[in-house]
């Protein structure tokens, strides 16, 4: 508002976000943007406690909060305030020559890895990776940012290849990794909620690359699954300009799934339903990768019982955070149980059942913190179906999700009928064939 609409503005943040907000202001060309800090956290504090924040001192500067606010709106501008700060940064194509051990250390110290050893991206290895796409090395693939409010960084085919080498991917996997990067979805989102990404591969390329859709598909028993997922993570953090705790990464607890960005093939051959990519309009003969974001909440069980399957599945759904989208990961045995035991013959019928039966009392639903943050604002300004759900009486059971938030993927080797629900939103998809 200050920069674009020229309204004098002060932003209130908590001190936990000091480094991040200063960095964002600088990257917006206004490092002296007026920002005042409060103790952390705000969430869960009473009005009296928050009044104490307002009456107290800025924990960063030690000065009274409201004095800083008033001064931030009234203190005359200095020269740098009136001009902002302009600068250009560059990324060199190559690193200075060094021994392999020194380079491993350099990459680790620069935050370019996931903390594990990487394959050094020599020119020969990168060139071999590049031979497996018809795209030119200098072609721009897309842009990535750790959050929507940070600046987007640009990246080329060659830069994706460098990260693919680092992850240990074989050159023939490269089109999948390029397709993943082209979705614009980061596997290193900065959210305080500690997100991870998940990728599902459909089509002929699953067999060409020897990807696993069967026993142990979700890890860690297949080279293609493992290294494509790792490449997605490394490429995300490096191509977006970093994933540094306290700066470009704010996940409070972190997420072990982010090491792998679970990547696997859908078991199309053993699934009773159409593959995921066909459901979303891709041709059956097309190879496609779909990206899911979140991977924080989950539920799990074995089988589908004749007497109480409805209650069991509802219990699983109630275990999810209602702001997370449910993605059902079904072993083929379970997919058939949904047909034989539950009578849900099609994938759409299963999605409809989850949509109709994923409910909770309105009062409980609207009181969830994440619902308050992300759904309540949409409801209060009339967006359906949230606006109608907001009118429900507190005890009235309301639907938790919309149909298009619910997904079903068939994966697993049929050693038993285990299944789980991953709280993960389908965030994008791309044709792999476009990147061959």
């Amino acid at each position, binding site marked *: 508002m200050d920069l674009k609409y020229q*309204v004098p503005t002060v932003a209130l943040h908590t001190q936990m976000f000091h480094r991040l907000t200063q960095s964002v202001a600088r990257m917006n060309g206004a490092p002296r943007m007026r920002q005042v800090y409060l103790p952390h956290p705000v969430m869960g504090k009473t009005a009296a406690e928050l009044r104490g924040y307002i009456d107290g001192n800025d924990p960063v500067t030690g000065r009274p909060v409201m004095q800083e606010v008033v001064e931030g709106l009234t203190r005359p501008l200095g020269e740098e305030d009136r001009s902002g700060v302009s600068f250009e940064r560059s990324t060199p194509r190559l690193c200075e020559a060094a021994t392999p051990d020194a380079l491993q250390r350099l990459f680790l110290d620069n935050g370019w890895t996931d903390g594990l050893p990487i394959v050094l*991206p020599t020119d020969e290895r990168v060139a071999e990776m590049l031979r497996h796409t018809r795209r030119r090395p200098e072609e721009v693939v897309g842009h990535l940012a750790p959050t929507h409010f940070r600046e987007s960084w640009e990246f080329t085919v060659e830069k994706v290849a460098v990260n693919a080498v680092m992850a240990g991917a074989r050159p023939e996997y490269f089109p999948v990794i390029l397709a993943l990067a082209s979705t614009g979805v980061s596997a290193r989102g900065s959210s305080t909620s500690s997100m991870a990404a998940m990728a599902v591969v459909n089509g002929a390329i699953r067999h060409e690359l020897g990807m696993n859709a069967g026993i142990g598909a979700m890890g860690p028993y297949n080279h293609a699954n493992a290294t494509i997922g790792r490449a997605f993570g490394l490429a995300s953090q490096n191509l977006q300009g970093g994933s540094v705790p306290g700066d470009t990464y704010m996940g409070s607890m972190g997420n072990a799934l982010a090491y792998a960005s679970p990547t696997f093939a859908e078991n199309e051959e053993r699934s009773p339903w159409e593959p995921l990519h066909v459901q979303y309009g891709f041709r059956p003969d097309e190879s496609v990768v779909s990206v899911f974001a979140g991977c924080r909440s989950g539920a799990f069980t074995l089988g589908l019982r004749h007497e109480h399957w409805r209650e069991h599945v509802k219990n699983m759904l109630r275990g999810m955070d209602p702001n997370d989208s449910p993605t059902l990961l079904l072993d083929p045995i379970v997919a058939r149980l949904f047909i034989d035991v539950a009578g849900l013959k099609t994938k759409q019928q299963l999605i409809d059942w989850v949509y109709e039966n994923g409910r909770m009392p309105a009062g409980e639903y609207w009181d969830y913190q994440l619902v308050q943050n992300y759904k309540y604002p949409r409801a209060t300004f009339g967006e359906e179906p949230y606006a109608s759900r907001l009118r429900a009486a507190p005890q009235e059971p309301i639907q938790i999700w919309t149909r298009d938030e619910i997904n079903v993927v068939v994966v697993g080797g049929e050693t038993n009928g285990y299944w789980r629900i991953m709280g993960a939103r389908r965030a994008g998809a791309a044709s792999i064939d476009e990147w061959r």
Partner: protein
Amino acid sequence: MTQQLVVHNPVGYPPKVTGKPLAPRLDTLSGRTVYLVDCRFDDSDILLKQVQDWFAERMPAVKTVYKPISSVYTRDDPATWKEVQANGHAAIVGVGH
């Protein structure tokens, strides 16, 4: 002697940063309207109500308007920004967390 290697840098290309001026500041807040813009995240509404109370008690000559953004903070909200620009003299944005 251990072999020296030349390897590629894995980092993407940052955008050019162009300096932007801050809005001119006010000579005083007395008699002016300050919008308290609620980004609707993690109890930011409760926080901004405290700011509003503070102005009422300590600087009553300042008119405050509590204004929640139109949707979630991840979406741009030009209608709200234009309202603040048209009807307000300054803004305090509260982000919660």
